[in-house]
């Protein structure tokens, strides 16, 4: 079935168009993003259970963007009364004028930006889903998650608890300007199984998840994740510490995705180019990886948690080849940054929610696959590690440093897995070295969308990333 577009937003449409017309009398540009996204989150463990209608991306509100004399301003509200657009217009004008007065008093200069393009475009998209979070059978879902948790408790001798979670969000967004009228509705879902084990005062946890551009029907696949989560947790209890040093490594698709995200995901967010915060600006057209490195970014290059039709500024979704055979081709860009850089936006203008500013943000960030098999890749390593499971990452786009926290490494000796596991692992390095040393890549590629992404330490949005198994070299600690 189609995920139905919000009746609430349809009801606001006329009043918001009137608001835009009123504000256009005073401003050079006016647009509105209105959101009404509903969700369901169920969390079950052996010791506590909860049901909520809120997820990371549920919201209902309106943000108005205006531009006058090259200065962009925004007003976010969630009590818009469609019956009284004139009152809302007056409230917005007055509030922004109070800010303008303070800026005048402090002698603050404006970073002038041209007026955004507003070519006519109409779009109405309702993507396919089997179920909706608003109407799915919550009782059955609670029973499914409870059964997974109960079953997982029987799979390991050191099990302390098993936390299962299922979240599904029905996104509805409407972008309106003088000439644009865009509406989209889609559902994404994500589920996790976290097995917690403890032995002799040492506690560890295994993590398995799944995600997709679909409804709660996704959770039928969650039970198959339990065994792997428990096995990982038990392995971590027995894991040793790694001897710090530089090693040949194979990254699992999940870790490859983390590298894609941290290495050249953040590094080519082009709002950072505007601020001169990214070294990537000086490397467009230059080599940043081996011939085996090709990387895509865009809402259209995978069907996962952030595969929208248009972004939060009313720009069509894209599929950008950021790195092609090791050469940095371009970055991704929101609409205002694109104006400042004199390029076209790529459909990567995203907000945490209607209350937050737009930044250039990632959507799906993926390495291309190759022709190698995992077996051949392992066989090619004399002494190294197969790295599995991601915990977190941090980039330094100005210096091209990278930090990845990885759950575990499987030792490879003389072309074979030795059976020894080390954990946790902190992988650090210089991005061009890490990508320049990519020498093999597997045929299969996987996409992961259970995580979130911050800009610095805030502005959390959903992203997905992934890739194939990659062989390279890195410093591990």
């Amino acid at each position, binding site marked *: 079935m189609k995920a139905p577009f919000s009746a609430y937003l349809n009801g606001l449409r006329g009043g918001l168009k009137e608001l835009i017309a009123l504000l256009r009398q005073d401003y050079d540009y006016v647009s509105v993003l209105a959101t009404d996204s509903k969700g369901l989150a169920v969390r079950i463990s052996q010791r506590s259970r909860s049901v909520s209608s809120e997820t990371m991306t549920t919201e*209902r509100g309106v943000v108005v963007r205006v531009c006058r004399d090259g200065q962009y301003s925004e007003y976010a509200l969630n009590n818009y009364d469609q019956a009284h657009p004139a009152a809302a217009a007056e409230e917005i004008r007055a509030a922004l004028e109070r800010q*303008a007065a303070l*800026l005048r008093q402090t002698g603050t200069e404006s970073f002038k930006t041209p007026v955004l393009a507003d070519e006519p475009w109409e779009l109405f998209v309702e993507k396919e889903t089997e179920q909706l979070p608003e109407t799915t059978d919550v009782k059955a879902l609670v029973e499914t998650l409870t059964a997974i948790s109960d079953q997982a408790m029987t799979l390991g001798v050191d099990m302390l608890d098993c936390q299962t979670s299922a979240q599904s969000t029905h996104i509805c967004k409407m972008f309106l300007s003088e000439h644009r009228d865009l509406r989209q509705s889609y559902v994404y879902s994500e589920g996790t199984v976290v097995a917690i084990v403890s032995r002799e005062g040492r506690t560890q946890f295994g993590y398995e998840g799944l995600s997709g551009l679909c409804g709660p029907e996704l959770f039928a696949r969650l039970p198959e994740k339990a065994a792997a989560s428990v096995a990982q947790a038990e392995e971590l209890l027995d894991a040793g510490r790694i001897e710090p040093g530089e090693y040949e490594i194979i990254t699992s698709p999940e870790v490859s995705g983390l590298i894609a995200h941290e290495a050249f995901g953040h590094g080519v967010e082009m709002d950072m180019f505007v601020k001169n915060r990214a070294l990537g600006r000086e490397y467009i057209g230059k080599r940043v990886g081996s011939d085996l490195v090709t990387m895509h970014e865009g809402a259209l290059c995978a069907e996962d948690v952030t595969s929208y039709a248009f972004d939060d500024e009313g720009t069509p979704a894209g599929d950008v080849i950021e790195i092609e055979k090791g050469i940095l081709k371009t970055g991704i860009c929101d609409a205002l940054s694109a104006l400042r850089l004199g390029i076209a936006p790529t459909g990567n203008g995203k907000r945490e929610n209607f209350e937050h500013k737009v930044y250039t943000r990632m959507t799906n960030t993926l390495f291309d696959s190759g022709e190698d098999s995992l077996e051949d890749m392992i066989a090619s390593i004399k002494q190294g590690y197969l790295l599995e499971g991601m915990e977190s990452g941090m980039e330094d786009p100005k210096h091209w440093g990278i930090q990845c926290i990885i759950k575990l490494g499987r030792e490879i000796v003389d072309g074979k897995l030795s059976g020894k596991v080390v954990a946790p692992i902190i992988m650090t390095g210089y991005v061009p070295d890490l990508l320049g040393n990519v020498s093999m890549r597997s045929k299969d590629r996987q996409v992961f969308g259970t995580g979130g992404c911050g800009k610095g330490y805030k502005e959390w949005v959903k992203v997905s990333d992934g890739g194939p198994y990659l062989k390279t070299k890195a410093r591990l600690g």
Partner: protein
Amino acid sequence: MLDTIVSLLKESGVYAWEISDVKTTGWEFYFIRHALDQNRVRKVEHITVKVYQLLSDGAWLGSASGEIAPTASAEEARALIEGLAYRATLVKNKPYTLHKPHPAEAAETKPIDAAAIARDFVETMRDLPETAGEDINSYEIFVAEKRRHFLNSEGIDLEESYPDSMIEVVVNARRDGHEIELYRMFPSGTCDAEGLRRDLLRTMRYGKDRLAARPTPALGKADVLFTGRDSVSLYEFFADRLGAAMVYRKMSDWKLGEPIAADFRGDRPGLTALRELPNSSKNRRYDAEGAPIRDTVLLDAGVAKNYLGGRMFSSYLGLNEAFLPTNFAVSGGSAEEAELRQGPYLEVVDFSDFQVDSMTGDLFGEIRLAYWHDGDTVRPVSGGSLSGSMLELMEDMRFTGASVQYNNWRVPAATRLKGVTVSGIE
């Protein structure tokens, strides 16, 4: 709207309920260098409702929560509450009761001048002494007046207001055509102009030193000194493991009345929850569930004294006085900073992302700037990482009695960890 929701909840027949209504008026300014990139206003209200159902003759308690939009009609709110009431019957937790009204002290609301606070931030940043080598790349100012109204079915009905500010700053340093950046985030109640200026001047000096940094040597095991904001992560580990949720879930084995380590060879940490710290953005009279926040000793000389936590898990542990604290102060340090700076040690002042895992105790971080004090000389170093287990390292931890405040945490000015694994790149 709130009156309508309360009436609907009373009519619904649910066993118990809680409402949190937070109104925010926010002023935001985004700067590239010192030119205004964008200004924003936020005027929003978030009403969150949680309903409880008693199940199987009181054997279980179910709950479900959700947000009701301030624009929702009475019919829409009724449907949402009915949906929550049904969903609450689907999850079974051990029963507990909600907080009851506390007569000791009324909450208070007072006006907050967001414009004046924002002006202080703008002027403080504008007046920073920048140089050709070190300057401000960009910054984002967030100032909010928040008004919170909390009600529950036991009769709690309280309101309070508070300022909530944050500034994010990116500092650049350059030399011989090479430029690097340092990232800082400063949450606070209002603008602490003097503190902000002091921290940013120090950050500019760090930037200059990072440009001169050499690769971090492969030290193997080394003593590491924390003198910056990352110290907070070390001490959050103690607060997390004293959380009722972690204890009840058996992820923390710290028991009240017992030392948290088998053997303290260094300083024995103390930790106190405080209702107020000067200019903290977390100063509250009541916690998120309506419990009064009191100054409470959580950890005294390395012995667990009180757990902290929400009603559900505190109740399961038989604790009626527990609450969710928002401010913390660390005590117990016996050392002078000069004493902690004896012998070889690595002073890390800038990480990519320093983390301490409360469950496993693992700590790790990539080093962006550190000072290697080899006993005779001091040199800035960069690269590599440090790692270790806080569960082991806390036994030999030394820290100063002198303290420094980072928003809602007052922590020792210097903390020295012994025998941390340092993976260098030299």
